[in-house]
Structures are given as C-alpha cells and as structure tokens.
C-alpha cells in the first residue's frame, strides 16, 4: 500500500520532464488506471452492502480520461475541477484511496470530513477544486480559476471535466464564451460516455460531435479517443501548451469514452443493450494500453501484471479498512465550516 502511494507520488514529482513511453511509465499508467478500476468496483460492492449512502456514480470504463488528463499536467501549478463522477479524478490527482473511501463511508477521516460525500471530493492541497452535483455548475468555476491564474500572471492551467449532457447547459456556453473573450487558461474536457443518465446523446443534442461546438466561440475543438490513455495524455499536453501562455485561448477536447455501469448505482441501465456494453468492453482502456505497449515493442509480462494487481489489491484493502475503522463524525460538526467563524451570528444554532 505504501509502495503504491509512493509510486503515485513519484509520478507526480516527475511532471516537469516530458513523459517518455518507457516501460516503467506505461506500467505506471496501467497501475494507476487499475487502481481506479478496482477502487470503483469495491465502492460498487460496499454500496450494495449499505456502507455508502446517497448517490454513487462509478467511473468504471473511463479511467483513461482521468489518468491521461493528470499525466499531461503539472499538479503543482495546474488545477482540476470536475462533476460528480469524481472518485476517479480524486484518485488520479493523488488523494489517498483511504481518504476517498472514508469520505464515501461518511467518516470523519474522509477527505471532506464526511461533509461532502461521493459527489464532493475536494483536495485543495492537491489542486483538486472539487466535485459538484449540479450538471454544468462547475464549468463557470473553471473559468474563474482561469481568470485568477491570468490575474495573478501565473502559468498554471485549469482542466474542467464534464459529461456530454452538460454541453447543452447554458453554463457551458457562457463559460466557453468568457474563456474565449478573456483568453483564459482552461482546458475543457468533455467525457462523452454517450448517455446523460438514460438519455443518449442522439436524443438530446442537435450536434453530437461535441468538439465541433468549440467553433461557436472561435475556439479549437478536438476529438480524442477517450479509451486510450496515451492519446488522452498527448491531447491534453498539446492543449496545455496552447492554453498556458498569456494570450492562449481555451481548448475543447471531446473524449469519447464509455461507462460500463449505469449512470449511478441506482440505474439499471435499461436504455442500452447488453450487447452494446460487451462490445464496448472490447476496448477496455486497460487492454488498449497493453496493445499500445505491444505496438511499441514493450513487453509486459503476465507476472508483472499480476504484481500490479496484487499491489492495487492491497491498496484497496487498506482503503476499505480505513473507511470501516474510521470514526463517525461528531454530530456537533454540522455547525462547522458554514461560516469562517463557528460563532458567527449569521449561523442560527438556536433560532
């Protein structure tokens, strides 16, 4: 468990160098996607056991986007903001699996002290500015973070992730326009998994090529294979290079991906056939990466994969243990972090 976390931190520290497609680098990407996969599978299991309440939106199948995005950026100067399918992104940006699982369990050792839950994974220290529950609601926030970066003449970028259903929301339009007129350093990444809850993109969107909508704001849009972590990484790195310098305008990336589970744990997903899901599983991002490695004549052995599986397994076990054993939050904490001061008269404890 400690090794897995150290490796993750090591990957973060090497962000300044260009990422070579060496065997260690590819294994690292694989392991990180595997961590997301096994974590989400575990979360799904314990959700059915009643350990997690509320909504739980699993990231299974979309791992290449989360890991690819993070791999292209520098979390010391760049920022992440995303929606409610946010466990994968939180893990990708380095939040310990223990803290994410504990938050799902609503424990005090969770990353948001049990105040946020599944849809609100924040890790400010790691530049993860949160998960948000209102579709599209986080997109203007990304424009604001970009504004602050330009205002302060910092060279960071902010990556904003949202689904294909969010692009029909006014918040999306207004944010791209403001990003364009003020040349804000935002990479807008649409995780197009084809279904907004039960509604396919064909039914909801006049233009199903999300990347083409960029032209409405005079921005560059690009279609990316969201199942290929290397393609994601490279597209985001290209976008970051464009967006980062003063005068750089935002870029819209459309990552075509797929979620193997329903919209949330409550969704039986009757709006798509089992055949379709099986078909999509043939391009599982984990397999796609192994194929890419083979293409580059990089030999990854079964033994190596099993070792990664074992390491990740340990990390997940540790996460579940931390969540199980973590303390329930003190009920008095409902009054904390509402205002800067717990004694502020604006807080009506006894009304």
């Amino acid at each position, binding site marked *: 468990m400690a090794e897995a976390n150290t490796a993750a931190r090591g990957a973060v520290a090497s962000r300044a160098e260009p990422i070579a497609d060496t065997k260690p680098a590819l294994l690292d990407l694989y392991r990180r996607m595997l961590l997301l996969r096994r974590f989400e599978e575990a979360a799904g299991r314990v959700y059915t056991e009643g350990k997690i309440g509320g909504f739980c939106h699993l990231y299974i199948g979309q791992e290449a986007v989360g890991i690819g995005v993070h791999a292209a950026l520098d979390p010391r100067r760049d920022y992440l903001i995303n929606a409610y399918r946010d466990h994968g992104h939180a893990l990708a940006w380095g939040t310990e699996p223990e803290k994410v699982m504990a938050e799902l369990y609503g424990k005090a050792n969770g990353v948001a002290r049990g*105040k946020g839950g599944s849809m609100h994974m924040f*890790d400010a220290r790691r530049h993860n500015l949160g998960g948000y529950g209102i579709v599209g609601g986080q997109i203007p926030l990304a*424009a604001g973070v970009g504004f602050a970066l330009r205002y302060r003449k910092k060279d960071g970028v902010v990556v904003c992730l949202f689904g294909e259903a969010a692009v029909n929301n006014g*918040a999306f339009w207004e944010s791209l326009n*403001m990003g364009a007129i003020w040349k804000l350093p935002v990479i807008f990444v649409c995780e197009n998994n084809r279904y907004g809850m039960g509604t396919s993109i064909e039914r909801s969107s006049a233009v199903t090529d999300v990347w083409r909508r960029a032209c409405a704001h005079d921005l560059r849009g690009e279609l990316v294979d969201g199942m290929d972590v290397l393609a994601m990484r490279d597209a985001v790195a290209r976008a970051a290079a464009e967006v980062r310098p003063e005068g750089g305008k935002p870029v819209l990336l459309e990552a075509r991906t797929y979620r193997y589970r329903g919209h949330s744990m409550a969704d039986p997903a009757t709006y798509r056939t089992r055949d379709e899901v099986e078909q999509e599983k043939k391009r599982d991002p984990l397999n796609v990466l192994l194929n890419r490695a083979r293409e580059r004549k990089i030999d990854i052995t079964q033994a190596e994969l099993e070792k990664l599986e074992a390491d990740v397994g340990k990390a997940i076990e540790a996460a579940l243990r931390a969540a199980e054993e973590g303390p329930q939050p003190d009920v008095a904490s409902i009054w904390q972090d509402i205002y*800067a001061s717990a004694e502020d008269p604006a*807080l009506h404890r006894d009304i």
Partner: protein
Amino acid sequence: MGALQRGARRVFVAVEGVARKNQRMPVLSYREALNQAMREEMARDDRVFLLGEEVGQYNGAYKVSQGLLKEFGPWRVVDSPISELGFAGLGVGAAIAGLRPIIEFMTWNFALLAYDQVVNNAAKMRSMSGGQLTCPIVFRGPQGAAHQLASQHSQVFENTYAYIPGLKVAVPATPRDAKGLLKTAIRDDDPVVFMESEVLYGSKGEVEDGELLIPFGQAEVVRDGGDVTIVAWQKMRFVALKAAELLDREGIHAAVIDPRTLRPFDLATVLGSLARTHRCVVVEEGWPWMGSGAQIADMLQRHGFDDLDAPVLRVTGRDVPMPYAKPLEQEVLPTPERVVEACKKVLYRS
C-alpha cells in the same frame, strides 16, 4: 462699538466657522459612498476586483463604479457579457482560487439566472469541501421597485438569500451604511449578498472621513420612542420615519429601527425597544407570504412574547407582481399612511 471689538467679533465668527467646518462631515450620495468603499478596498487589497455588466467603460449602469476602470485598469474592473450565471460562477471560481471578487448584478431581478451559483456553489463551498475551500465574494446590486419599471424589474428577493445558510445579507439604506457595510462585506471571508436600491443611489447623507467599517448584525436606532417599535430597512426606513413624524402629531412616539443586515439580524436591539414599547410593526417592501418580516415577527413573538401587548403587524408590498401604471404601483408599495394605520392598530387606537 469700537473697531477693535468689531474686529474681535469677526475673528470669533471666523474661528467658529473653522471649528464648525472641522466638525462637519462630508456629505456623499449613496452611489458615491459605494464608489468610495470599492475604491478604498481595491487600493488596499489587490485581490479585490469588480466584474459585471457595464461596470467599466460605461462607468456603471447606475454610475456606481464611475472612474474605477480609469484608476484600476481592465483586469480589476471587468466588463462582462450578459451572462449572469456564467459570471457569477466565474466569480466563485476566482474566489476559491484566492481572489476577492465583487460581482455586480445590474439588478437583483437578473440575478435569478445566477441563483444556482450563489446558492449551490458560493454558499456551500466551505461546508461541502470540509473547510478546504472558501468563497470570499460579494454579490452586489440594486433590488426593489424604482419608478414604474413593472413586474420583472421591481422585485425584492432578499429573503430568498437570507434563507440560505452560508450567505450573509446586507440591506443598507443610507450612504454611510452603504459605505461601511460594503467595506465590511469585501473584507468578510464569507459570501455576502449586498442589496442596494436604484431609488436610493442619489440620496445624500453624512459619511465620516477615514476608515469606516460597520459590522454586520448591528441595527441602528434611527429615532427613539416609547409607544411603538417600527422595524424597517432600505426605502422603507424613510417610509417609517415619515410615518413616525405623522404619529408624533397625534402624540404617538415611535421608535424606528433599521436592522441594516438581514443575515445576521440584530434581534437584541429590537427586543430592547420592544421591552419599552410592547408593540411592533415591521415594514418591508417585499411580498408578504414567506417574506423577511414573517421571520422577524416569528422571532419577536417567540423571544418577546411576554413583552408584547398586541400581535406583531407587518406592512408589506401587496401580494401581486408589480404593475406598470403609476397609481397601481403606488397602491402596491407601503406608504406612511399604511404604517400609521398599523401602529394605531397595535395600540388599539384605530
């Protein structure tokens, strides 16, 4: 009188004139007071910036931000597109990234489009992140009726924001309160909803020089009296004062208390007056059902029950969308006469 004494008197008068001049406070308009507040805070803290429609080159739709673009430049006084949801959210994003935005809504009628950003993001940022992120933002602009602006441009929504835990709501009536409360709002580390009034922008009042910070949750006893307590804010403060004058002529002496902020609300000052008068009338411009005054009346009847000799009455805007025609608008809005009538009712003298 000899030349010497005439000279002495002139000197005396001149000295007195100088002394009076030193004691005389500058007189500012409400909009100038807001302008000064923003100017001072922007000069003091370079994280503070202003963003909204027409705030820059147009100098403000109501000229509140006159001259600020020229002084601070286009990164600190930003003209926005007509995208209330977008720029309110941009403000929240800038706030969580370490800046201290002032987001101007041309009026609070238009801010309905941004309600999601204020309520779901600004108000909840600190709590849903477990204390990791904060949102030191001020949303400001005018609310309420002006002159025949009709139903979509005349609304009072203070209660819909005062309802939300995580927000604070200020409702200044005078230039002094406008300046002192806005400076406090800008320095507050929590999101503040700051509600002004188009009609009050031109009103004038004394505002002392020097650093002026008025804390939230501190009501002003505008005039004291022992017979009935009137609670009123913004334009209604002046309606209440006029009513108090009319009541005076009938030997009824009203206290007028302006809470100045609705969240937090200074209940103690109102209860203190109630202990003396035993009767209270709340005057508000907004609609009656679920309005701000309903909350105030609830607090008074629970916490001041033993001091009350009559029910708490409310004088409110009538429960209809604001009509356009002048006599109709006047019928809708509270008047001094309606306040007088309510005061007499609680005194059982009608």
